[in-house]
């Protein structure tokens, strides 16, 4: 993050609040979320299901159902441009070319009735003015870059003829095919066998590093993201509770929620020791609790936690939104 100061961030979400109106009241999916993704940076977004990880990024690519959500405050910038005011045509040119998304379910994420090659060529030719033949070469090259054996044979195949891991590689190839500046990887390994997870992670990381592509990596598994990410954001109930360089967050987790997440990992627990789980459940986002949303489940909570904690940046670039940390650490600066 040294030579990128002049260029706009790949993705910059500032103090974003977003809600889904329902008959039971507005579901406050995001509450003051701030996420910065620098150029060529790999950033992890971690949290439980429904905490707003996907919503944040889908708001940025406008893939949320139009008309069903409301942005109540904050701003989004994709390479300095505001996606919320783009026309359909502009959006279509941005998607796939400037920012592409890899989704979770490789089983259904490819069209079952169209050959792999045709799907790849369709995306490439949408964004690059090249011949079908040339697009096929590009597709074939990127497939082999994803370590897919016999790419020309795979391009003739239909999705149902491939394994889940192979399909995910194809989807990653599709995401990288037009050399986007930013890739949003939304739980790309969750549906895969543990044995192929690591390989897929390395493919995304390797290609992104070689091409200088920024990546937002969304996962509910902190161990998975920590393998490839430069920085982490920990989300809880629509708020960022902690962020910072991966090493710092893992070694000195500040927020009680981050610590609890780390204690839930089987890898970090001594053999035969009891594996932990976090008591309680995620709060109702139509009528969330006052103050810190994690308070009802937090073992360290006291009366201060009934007020909303502000995010405080600590030494080493780590930031945390927790009252308990304010007394023990020296805040460098405090964001309003």
């Amino acid at each position, binding site marked *: 993050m040294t030579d990128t100061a002049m260029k706009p961030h790949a993705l910059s979400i500032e103090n974003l609040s977003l809600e889904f109106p329902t008959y039971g009241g507005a579901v406050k999916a995001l509450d003051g979320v701030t996420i910065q993704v620098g150029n060529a940076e790999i950033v992890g977004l971690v949290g439980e299901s429904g905490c707003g990880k996907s919503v944040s990024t889908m708001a940025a690519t406008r893939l949320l159902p139009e008309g069903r959500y409301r942005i109540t405050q904050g701003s989004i910038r994709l390479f300095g441009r505001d996606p919320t005011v783009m026309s359909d045509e502009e*959006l279509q040119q941005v998607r*796939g070319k400037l920012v592409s998304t890899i989704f979770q379910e490789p089983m259904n994420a490819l069209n*079952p009735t169209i*050959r792999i090659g045709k799907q790849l060529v369709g995306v490439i030719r*949408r964004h690059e003015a090249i011949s079908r033949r040339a697009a096929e070469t590009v597709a074939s090259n990127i497939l082999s870059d994803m370590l897919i054996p016999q790419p020309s044979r795979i391009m003739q195949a239909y999705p149902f003829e491939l394994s889940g891991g192979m399909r995910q590689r194809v*989807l990653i190839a*599709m995401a990288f095919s037009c050399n986007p500046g930013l890739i949003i990887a939304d739980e790309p390994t969750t549906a895969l066998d543990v044995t192929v997870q690591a390989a897929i992670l390395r493919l995304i990381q390797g290609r992104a590093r070689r091409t200088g592509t920024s990546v937002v990596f969304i996962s509910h598994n902190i161990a998975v993201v920590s393998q490839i990410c430069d920085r982490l954001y920990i989300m809880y109930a629509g708020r960022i509770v902690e962020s910072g360089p991966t090493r710092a967050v893992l070694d000195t987790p500040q927020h009680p929620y981050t610590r609890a997440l780390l204690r839930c990992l089987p890898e970090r627990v001594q053999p035969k020791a009891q594996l932990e789980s976090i008591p309680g459940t995620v709060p109702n986002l139509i009528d969330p609790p006052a103050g810190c949303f994690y308070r009802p489940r937090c073992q360290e909570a006291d009366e201060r936690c009934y007020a909303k904690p502000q995010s405080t940046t600590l030494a080493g670039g780590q930031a945390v939104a927790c009252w308990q940390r304010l007394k023990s650490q020296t805040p460098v600066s405090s964001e309003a």
Partner: protein
Amino acid sequence: MTIARIIVPRFILLFFVVFGVAIITFTISHLIPGDPARMIAGDRASAETLENVRRDLGLDRPVTDQFVIYVRNLVHGDLGTSLRTRRPVASDIATFLPATLELGCISLVLAVLIGIPLGVFSAIYKDGPIDQIARTISVCGISMPVFWFGMVVILLFYAKLQILPGSGRLAMQFASPQRVTGFFLIDTLLEGRFDAFLSAVRHLILPTFVLAFANLGVITRQIRASMLDVLQEDYIRTARASGLRRRAIIFNHALRNALIPSITLLGLAMGDLLYGAVLTETIFAWPGMGTYVVTSIQTLDFPAIMGFTVVASIGYVLINLLIDLAYMLADPQIREVG
């Protein structure tokens, strides 16, 4: 290879189906009360005349013999002789079937050509005005009985407005064209009689529209439902996230998949045309299979009824074969794996 694997079993099946249908129709025709000889000879015929008619028709021989003769003739394409028209049933059917096919094919094409786009736009603009109109049309199509709707249409366009003919295939002043295909639209053109062709077109409008309307409703509803399903699919989200154009996503990515569940429906619709034709033809005095079979039933013309049933069952098996082939075309998973 895979095509053979689909076609061959169907033809083996066809043999069994026709044989089964022959047994059933033969049995039923002998169980139903009513004496064909009496129908032909008339109420006041003497016992001797009746006996002669029976002998002529082979009705005096044992039932098993009659069946063996019937099946033997069937194998040779001989469906027997109509008691009413005194002509071979096979040639009667050859005369009337093309009229029904012409009516059925055009109304099916009409239903598909209108129904699919209507369903697609209904799904894209869900709950909007287009959707409301499309849904109203499809509910009307499904719920209005053909015989009632047919009457209304005749009353309006023929009796009141007098802009379209309400019965027959051609206006009185035109002679029927020489039978080449049996489709008046084609045969009149082959003879270069453009005025007769126009008359044939005008005669087709009302019956095809009435016959198409019910299927139109069913097709629209099915396409709408499966499009709504498909548009929720992950691969549509992938296509959107890749920046593909809306039109390309809807027609190349979504419709292709939404058509697959509609194929079965299309098969059923084709089957429905056979029975819908019976009602439509009766209302519009359309000289097709429907009119033929209704008259045959009224006159207890067993050979004709049995002939119609056999031909209809062959039709059903062929339709099923077509459906299987259509599935193969539409769904690569069936095509490649078999």
